[in-house]
């Protein structure tokens, strides 16, 4: 029961606030009104003020009695509230009994009441929501303005992440010209030079890095840094620790770190909005979506056209299950979506070398399948300067050595299938030696075991 009464305080406490404002407004409104009825209304309102403030005080005292509330704010809150209850009761009594003396003091008593109300209200807010609540602005993680969007490769751990921390929390004392403790955090030499024995930063050794030692001391310690103002956060200290133990490079790129611990990744993701998810090639390309009409047209000319993934602009186009005939006109239809096609499969069709010129106009083509067709070196010649092709499948075609050499000039190419073509082993070996990064797959059926 006692708890219930105490917990009603936040509810009850708002009643006197409203009543006081209402009573004062009513008195002001009727300042020239001499009717008895109006006077009674005023008396009644002040009765409400007195009763509600007394209830608020009682519930408040019960709540304090629970032991959870202590300190200066509570002290002020309690006595100002009692003040309100006393003054408002006095106002009510004077009005009710029409005590004349009151007429002279009315304004100042009401004024006092409002002042106490503001103080008590503010203190109540501080107790409930924490100090400084009134001026508190919600803080969001401040994403760093990166040079290259979404790329962690270009981030410098020191310059982009640690230096701003030093600037906001340390440099007002440890700057050039004001090198307290002989430490200057504005220059690299200053950080690395000795401060009472140990340097500020000892690359690779946390136990000899004075800065790290100081910011991780117990906060009550007289040598704890910073002595005033907000301390370094856990995240900042953890990044500092990682940076020092990895050699404290002032220019090192995050992308060059071989292994970034999971917690550092989490910290950087949460605090700096960095994205460590590897983006596939397809997600890095920015292409407009093909129009519905173009896709419909292609589908009507017997192509399967699908996005490579839901809502993706890049398209996967093939003729699987839609017959093996492909006319010149059908080939040209592909140009409607030339920017979006990334996987193209025209295998097992009667496609001809004329497709070469069309393929050349597809800048984002990465996988090309033309196996089991009659195409040959002509296609290869057209593709020499292609920039994105990764895979070409030309098995069971008329490709010969000349075509193979042309395909070898596509620098982006990583795999090439040439089984059952006119390509000779010698040419394959030659290309293999000049393009070790290119996987060439020919006849495997007779491959001897590697034991």
């Amino acid at each position, binding site marked *: 029961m006692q708890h219930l009464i105490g917990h009603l305080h936040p509810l009850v406490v708002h009643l006197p606030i409203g009543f006081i404002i209402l009573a004062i407004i009513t008195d002001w409104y009727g300042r020239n009104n001499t009717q008895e009825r109006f006077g009674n209304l005023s008396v009644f309102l002040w009765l409400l003020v007195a009763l509600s403030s007394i209830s608020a005080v009682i519930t408040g005292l019960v709540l304090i009695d629970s032991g959870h509330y202590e300190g200066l704010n509570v002290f002020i809150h309690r006595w100002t509230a009692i003040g309100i209850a006393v003054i408002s009761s006095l106002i009510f009594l004077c009005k009710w009994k029409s005590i004349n003396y009151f007429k002279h003091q009315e304004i100042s008593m009401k004024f006092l009441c409002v002042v106490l109300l503001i103080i008590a209200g503010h203190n109540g807010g501080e107790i409930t929501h924490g100090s400084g609540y009134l001026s508190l602005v919600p803080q969001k993680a401040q994403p760093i303005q990166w040079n290259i969007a979404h790329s962690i490769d270009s981030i410098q751990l020191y310059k982009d992440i640690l230096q701003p921390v030093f600037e906001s929390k340390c440099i007002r004392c440890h700057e050039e010209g004001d090198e307290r403790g002989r430490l200057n955090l504005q220059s690299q030499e200053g950080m690395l030079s000795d401060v009472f024995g140990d340097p500020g930063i000892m690359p690779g050794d946390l136990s000899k890095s004075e800065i790290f030692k100081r910011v991780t001391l117990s906060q009550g310690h007289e040598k704890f840094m910073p002595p005033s103002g907000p301390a370094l956060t856990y995240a900042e200290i953890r990044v500092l620790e990682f940076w020092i133990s990895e050699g404290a490079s002032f220019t090192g790129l995050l992308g060059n770190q071989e292994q970034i611990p999971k917690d550092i990744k989490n910290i950087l993701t949460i605090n700096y909005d960095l994205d460590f998810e590897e983006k596939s090639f397809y997600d890095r390309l920015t292409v407009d979506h093909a129009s519905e009409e173009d896709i419909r047209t292609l589908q009507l000319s017997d192509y399967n056209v699908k996005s490579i993934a839901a809502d*993706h602009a890049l398209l996967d186009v093939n003729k699987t*299950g839609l017959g093996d005939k492909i006319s010149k006109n059908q080939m040209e239809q592909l140009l409607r979506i030339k920017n979006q096609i990334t996987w193209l499969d025209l295998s097992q069709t009667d496609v001809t070398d004329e497709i070469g010129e069309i393929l050349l106009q597809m800048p984002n083509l990465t996988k090309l399948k033309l*196996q089991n067709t009659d195409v040959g070196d002509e296609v290869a010649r057209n593709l020499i300067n292609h920039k994105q092709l990764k895979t070409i499948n030309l098995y069971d075609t008329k490709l010969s050595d000349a075509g193979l050499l042309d395909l070898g000039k596509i620098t982006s190419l990583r795999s090439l299938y040439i089984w059952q073509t006119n390509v000779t082993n010698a040419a394959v070996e030659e290309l293999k030696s000049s393009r070790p990064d290119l996987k060439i797959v*020919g*006849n495997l059926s007779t491959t001897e075991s*590697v034991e």
Partner: protein
Amino acid sequence: MGHCGQFENNYSRRDFLRKTSLGLGALSLASLLDPGLLATNQMSGTGMIGPHFAPKAKRMIYLFQSGGPAQHDLFDYKPLLNKMNGQEIPESIVNGQRFTGMTAGQASFPLAGSHFSFKKYGQSGALFSELMPHTSRVADDLAFIKSMHTDAINHDPAATLILTGSQLSGRPSLGAWLSYGLGSENRNLPDFVVLVTKDKYGQPLYSRLWGNGFLPSHHQGVQFRAGKNPVLFLNNPPGVTDSNRASQLQYLNKLEQINLKETGDPEIEARMAQYEMAFRMQTSVPEIMSVEKEPEYIYDMYGPDAKIPGTYAANALLARRLVEKGVRSVQLYHQGWDQHGNLPAAITTQCKETDQPTAALITDLKQRGLLEDTLVVWGGEFGRTSYTQGQLSATNYGRDHHPKCFTIFMAGAGIKAGITYGKTDDFGYNIIENPVHIHDLQATILHLMGFDHKQLSYKHQGRRYRLTDQFGTVVKDILS
């Protein structure tokens, strides 16, 4: 219907209940006015969800070795078992693990060393026993997971778990989920084809292992059989010509249209689409099954069985032909790995039947450039024990079911070739490094096919179901 025709809609009974049970307010005006909104939803015969991200694999071939192949005699080499052959398995290793009813009564559990010799193969140095002379040649194309583990200790629940994601029957199978998620690539063939080795006996196979569960029925696996009728009831009865059948279908279509108008049942449209698909399959299936056109050297590759329809070798060859034609998933089933006794002889037979075709399939896919976007998975439902079941003699031993560790391998699209992931202890009994649960494997397969396994779901009976239930972590370390 008459005057209330304006409210006519393609609602199934289930849809009606689902919508109205939320109150009329939930019946959105938009879907009332535009039947197309719901129709596309339900007629997912063509509508697909599409991968969540660019997939590494477009197709999957799952070589399911039913019965649980003995990992200690094939890949997971444990010399300690030979050294301690006949000695009791230490209690500290078994650690209270339950035994099956078949060995629980055994008075002793002597360790059984493998009778087969092991060697390292390829640049990756993967271990194979002498039972796999062909598959060992493609060692560098494979990624082994030696730390698979499962929840079930018997065949039925274990196979149901690995193929449908739950020990209880009724969930959609992996191939059905892929069909549901990816849709069809070739409208003339089913998305999901099942090939079962003929005349093999052992643990029974049930169609629920390739069933659609609660997904729409066209996502279920279609079994292609060896012989005159690859797909049951697909061919016209004797005396009915193709043109007869075509005009019959045309008229049926007309009648169904009337029916559809009257009742508005979306299942009618689904049924009609399937009739037409079956009609197209009357041409496409014989075409794909007519393997005679394959050149002799291909038969040589797949081995002596390749010309006998219904063998594992013939099915492996067929699997290649199917993925070549855009079938999303092909699942081979080969029974007979359940070697409780007489293991040395039985496993030799199994390997003779499967080793060469498996290796040939991987090589064949590779030289055709298909391995680049086809995922191949080889494995059973659980492993076998390192102690013997029954009498251990100089020439014979048997192994019981073992769910705590087993070995599978994967190859192809998105797989880091030439690696071995996970480790078991020296007794081959417990996993000591990187365990991979069945749901992790499923999550990884879905990931390779372009899906976040947590997002690929289907609402049924009031909640969304996933292949991986509430579990599963993608095994990133085996991805290329």
